């Protein structure tokens, strides 16, 4: 169980990462601005990175930090491609919510 002393253990950081992940999920589900949805995906990626670093510290394994390095690189590539798609879709539109992208609706 979680010890009640005032030294932060790995569980504290893992629970913090879980809460951060849930806030990011809530943002993706609720917000309709595609840019803000993207920021919420970044929140979720950061929660996972925090878990990786915590477990690397807890299990004394440097490979957890290596994985975080790769996650950061892939996140950077993902942001570049995603923002490129958003710019090319939204360039000639007045509205800026994902609900307005309804051309395929029958």
């Amino acid at each position, binding site marked *: 169980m979680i010890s009640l002393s005032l030294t932060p253990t790995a*569980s504290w950081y893992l629970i913090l990462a879980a809460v951060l992940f849930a806030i990011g999920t809530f943002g993706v589900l609720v917000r309709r601005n595609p840019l*803000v949805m993207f920021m919420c995906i*970044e929140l979720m990626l*950061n929660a996972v990175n925090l878990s990786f670093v915590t477990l690397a510290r807890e299990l004394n394994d440097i490979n957890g*930090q290596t994985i975080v*390095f790769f996650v*950061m690189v892939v996140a950077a590539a*993902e942001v570049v491609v995603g923002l490129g798609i958003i710019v090319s879709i939204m360039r000639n539109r007045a509205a800026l919510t994902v609900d307005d992208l309804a051309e395929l609706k029958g």
Partner: protein
Amino acid sequence: MQFFVFVCAALMILLGAVGVIVRKHPVHAALSLVLTLFGVAVSFVSQEAHFLAAVQVIVYAGAIVVLFLFVIMLLGVDRVENLRTEPLTAQRPLAIITCLGLVGVLVAAIVNGNGVLNERGEGINLPDLQNGPDANTVQLAESIFSRYVVAFEVTSVLLVIAVVGTVLLTRKRLAKASVK
């Protein structure tokens, strides 16, 4: 002292995250995201991941948020989302229930699984008199450039593909008539 650092980092992370999802102006959301990213960097430092904390500040808080702000300015900074209207009925209550359930499941798994993982790695070098001040960076570099060197090279290919693809994607197409 560690408790104080943890509380500060947790406050930064949670306030920033809540700011991202409740501020209706995208610029304010991006600045709240910076607060969260710095909080994550602080908790990286407090867990001996010094190199990753520096990369977090430089790449995330520096490059990625600046990219977000660029795109917000490019698309028009005045477009503010109206958060009062709810396009789908019962979407927000369902989202709240989903996220509370997610937190519950994750916390239960963390509390129950505490101490289950018994396998230990070779250890993380801490910066001290024996290892030198850059022990974490040296050890991380040894891991990346020996065991994960193929993944590292593939990552560079991924970055090139992403950049070329984005340039092709956002280029304005010239009219065929003007070429003739």
